[in-house]
């Protein structure tokens, strides 16, 4: 089990690097566009690229954010409920999360198939859209794994 946990954690970290690189690129690209605009040479379609990078930034950060307990929740009932009741709520919410992200991943994957099939591209630069859908779908799948390891972690503790 600990091997599985380590695998998931590594996976999250790689995805996080992609997200971080996208965030930094977003900043540098926009600054370059603003500067080049002064010389009447704007980079065409910057906002499309920034939107694209924005999706990578957010989507690829999901699993690690979950791992770091970065998502907010209401804790005033779970704080009070210790023992079996608290444990049951914890297991239930992890399973609900797995279900939700499985649905999201599966349907984003289908959406990616559709985008590929219908060869949808971005408005100005004609960038294909399907890799984004596949990418976020994959991250949601990893998110499912994170929620499953959550269960194991609590058990081990």
């Amino acid at each position, binding site marked *: 089990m600990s091997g599985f946990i380590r695998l998931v954690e590594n996976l999250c970290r790689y995805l996080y690097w992609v997200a971080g690189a996208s965030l930094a690129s977003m900043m540098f690209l926009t600054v370059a566009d603003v500067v080049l*605009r002064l010389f*009447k*040479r*704007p980079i*065409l*379609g*910057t*906002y*499309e690229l920034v939107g694209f990078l924005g999706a990578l930034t957010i989507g690829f950060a999901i699993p690690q954010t979950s791992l770091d307990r970065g998502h907010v929740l209401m804790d005033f009932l779970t704080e009070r409920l210790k023992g079996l009741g608290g444990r049951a709520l914890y297991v239930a919410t992890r399973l609900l999360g797995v279900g939700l992200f499985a649905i999201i991943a599966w349907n984003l994957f289908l959406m990616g198939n*559709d985008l590929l099939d*219908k*060869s*949808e*591209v*971005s*408005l*100005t630069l*004609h960038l294909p859209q399907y890799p984004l859908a596949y990418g976020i779908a994959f991250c949601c799948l990893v998110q499912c794994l994170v929620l499953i390891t959550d269960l194991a972690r609590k058990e081990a503790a």
Partner: protein
Amino acid sequence: APTVKLTYSVFFPASHGHSILAMEWAKEVEKRTNGAVKIDVFPGATLTPADQCYDGVVKGISDIGMSVLSYVKGRFPLTEVVDLPLGYTSGLQVTRLANAYYQKMAPKELDDVKVMYLHGHGPGILHTKTPVAKLEDLKGLKIRCTGTSARVVSALGATPVAMPQTETYDALQKGVVDGVVSPIETLKGWKFAEVVKCSVQNFGSSYSLAFFVAMNKKKWDSLPKDIQETITQINQEWIDKTGKAWDDFDKIGVEFTLAKGNQVVALSKEEDARWAKQVQPVLAEYVASTKAKGLPGEEALKFCQEWLKSNP
């Protein structure tokens, strides 16, 4: 018989003339089917965003939808022919052409929905912060555009800056861009008249944007034959109504910008022809790119050009 309830996602804001016209269409359907069909209209892209509207109809998120076809770039290569700078004179002309074209060519790309009718905005022309009278004045101007209009702006010798419609007002006000290409109704609809000074009627090189109104195929097939016929009849009536509405909006846009003290410049015949010649490569590029996909883009273009010749 039980009432059929349908949802209709419209990307125009609720107060916009096209949302009102869509609601009238819904009312008309309800009235002429004696209440057998009831339609809830959701304007302002609140149910599905503009670029998700079409697929939202295919997947049944809304039963009916109205949005811009080319917001889903690449999915409708043949219908996008209407967006090209073919030199339009009115919204009615564009709208009639779009429907005539669909009737004739029935491109397969629209087969996953039941098309109610298509329409297109009036001539997409140039609006700038500094006066423009001839092609040379465009050199070095940064012009807001997207998609096909970006190709038009490049061809005319200006610098295209692609950005969302919602940011254009700000960018114009602050001088991030020097102008915008759009139908003149946007001078009122999006308040651009407050931040531009001059509109150029470059009709010879004007482009448009094709809009669709479409129904989920399964929903359509589930409707009784007589109701289908009634709706088809109403759609026929709404083609001209919608085209004329575009022209009314353009007229209001002209009055609005003139009242703000801005100019509306007509190009001389020779100058207009120069501009038109300048955008020809955009058409050639279209033909080449459709050919590469094995699609009859050349035929589509020829049909439109001939139709426009006989319907000036």
